[in-house]
């Protein structure tokens, strides 16, 4: 199977939905069913209590003025949604910041991650040690990384601006303190951790490519770049597309770094989840927070739909090819 391991769930989902239920062998049916449901009971109960129940409840909450202070929540119709769309600059600001972050981060993460994966795919002595080292930041916590990078990106004394001044830049950016530079600063901070994680995934994709493809390309006289364009990229498209889609959902879930850097109150770092935390927990407007969470779900549903609808196009499935 040449499926990228991360995309496997979606390929599998498509296969599950198309297979007829109960088509597998029937054996000891009755007791096995009871046993199976007993084993699964923690998940069944948990999914209803912690996921589906709260999900339905938050739909209801989003139409009320539920708050920490009022004991008697009232039904206020779509007022929360109207407020979000027309009366709260933070909503559009957070979408703008998230969108800008996507626009900058996707090309950076893709290109640098892919280059990193190519670098780590080289066959030289000691490559395992380099892999270990380069993947290290991807396991560090968002808070730890934020604490470090706030210092490195300090406008006056930070390491980066010191280096920039030494290189002759007279007026280096103020990074997190400047509304125009806060998003690039965030991309820079996150790239330290995210690119390593991305490179692992691309590396897995690269190592799944059949070496015979490279050999036949070489025999046809293809050089390094030609082989990259004609073999590596097409074989990696599933991984690349999947990464793109997950970056969308991940950018709506940025929290730790933005919260730590801006203490949850800086408009420069008002990523969607920080905004939601402000509304629901700092300001105690739970109904409004629930309405905002609906936006997150809509984004999630769109992403999932796109993934499943397109999975047969971007999942390169060797078994499916053989069946034809």
């Amino acid at each position, binding site marked *: 199977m040449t499926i990228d391991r*991360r995309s496997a*769930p*979606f390929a599998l*989902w498509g296969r*599950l939905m198309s297979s007829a239920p109960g088509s597998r*062998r*029937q054996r000891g049916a009755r007791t*096995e069913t009871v*046993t*199976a*449901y007993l*084993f*699964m009971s*923690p*998940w069944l109960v*948990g*999914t209803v*209590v*912690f996921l589906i129940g*709260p999900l339905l409840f938050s739909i209801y909450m989003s139409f009320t003025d539920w708050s920490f202070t009022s004991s008697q929540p009232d039904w206020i119709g779509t007022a929360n949604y109207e407020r979000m769309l027309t009366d709260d600059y933070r909503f559009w600001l957070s979408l703008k910041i998230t969108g800008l972050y996507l626009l900058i981060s996707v090309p950076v993460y893709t290109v640098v991650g892919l280059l990193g994966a190519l*670098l780590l795919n*080289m066959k*030289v002595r000691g*490559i395992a040690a380099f892999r270990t080292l380069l*993947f290290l930041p991807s*396991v*560090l*916590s*968002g*808070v*730890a990384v934020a*604490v*470090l990078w*706030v*210092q490195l990106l300090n406008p006056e004394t930070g*390491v980066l601006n*010191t280096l920039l001044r*030494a290189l002759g830049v007279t007026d280096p950016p103020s990074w997190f303190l400047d509304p125009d530079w806060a998003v690039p600063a965030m991309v820079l901070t996150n790239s*330290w951790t995210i690119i390593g*994680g*991305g490179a692992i995934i691309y*590396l*897995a994709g690269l190592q799944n490519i059949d070496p015979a493809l490279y050999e036949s390309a*070489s*025999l046809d006289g293809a050089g390094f770049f030609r082989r990259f364009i004609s073999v590596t990229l097409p074989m990696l498209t599933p991984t690349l597309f999947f990464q793109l889609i*997950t970056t969308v*959902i991940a950018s*709506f879930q940025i*929290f*730790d770094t933005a*919260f730590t*850097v801006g*203490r949850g109150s800086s408009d420069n770092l008002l990523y969607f989840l920080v905004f*939601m935390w402000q509304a*629901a*927990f700092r300001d105690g407007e*739970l109904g409004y927070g629930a309405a905002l*969470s609906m936006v997150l*779900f809509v984004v*999630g549903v769109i992403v999932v739909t796109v993934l499943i609808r397109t999975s047969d196009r971007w999942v390169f499935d060797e078994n499916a090819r053989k069946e034809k």
Partner: protein
Amino acid sequence: MSALSLRPGIRRSRGLYYGWIRPIGAAVIKYSLLIAASATVLLPLGWMLTVALKADGSTFFTNPVQWFPIDQFHWENFGRALFNPDQPFALYFFNTLWLEVFIVFGTVVSCALVAYPFARLTFPGRNFLFSIVILTMLIPWQGLMVPQFLLFYNLGWYGTNLPLIVPSFAGSAFFVFLIRQYMRSIPLELDDAARLDGAGPFRIFWSVILPLAKPALTTCAVLTFLAVWSDLLGPIIYLTDDSQYTLAVGLSNFVSTQSNRTNLLMAANLITIIPVAIIYFFAQKQLIGGIASVGLKG
């Protein structure tokens, strides 16, 4: 390069350039690229150690930048960060480990239990339920923080560890998926043999499947450990008292309250990073496999 290896005879006959200079040149370029990439990881960490070891009030930000400890070695800064009465990181450290014990245990046990029937048993509704597992993997759970908060608040769990611990016993969709995939790769003949010996499903699960699924369970445990270690949103919503804070919360607060004591901040930061780095070096096989299959940070 692979073109050369395809025609092994050619290499010897090509003279000095192809025999010596080109391979050495290629190796030099490869290693310089790898070393340059490693520097972007090592230099910030080294800078952090440099600052953590400096005396109070010394210049933390020097020009030119000092990347690794050069002149000062105030190792007691680590002790001061751990036992600072305002921000007792030793306590935060203990709190985080205490949470880890329950959450890692709950996640591994529940996910193994739930994955087993999906992998090895036949029952009506299996495909439907498993497609729900996959769908719930993709829902951004942070969207549920508001209604979940109300639920836990009304149960009287606000200000306790319970909202962070109890949900982990309900299984996490991604790990159920991961362990299920692994369990499916175990030959079915083992179950049949155990059944002939009179073992029931639970006995088979406990004595046959679980021992063989250890690699997947380890991956699950390590990834859960890391996720709990870095979780900020859960603890800042539910933990109200300073004495309950985890490292992530303590560190996040430290940034704003003591920003002039950069050396202690960096020492505290290293204290949170070192355990993760140690676990990473010991469990990198499981971790890299696991990250490749989930994209931990997305």
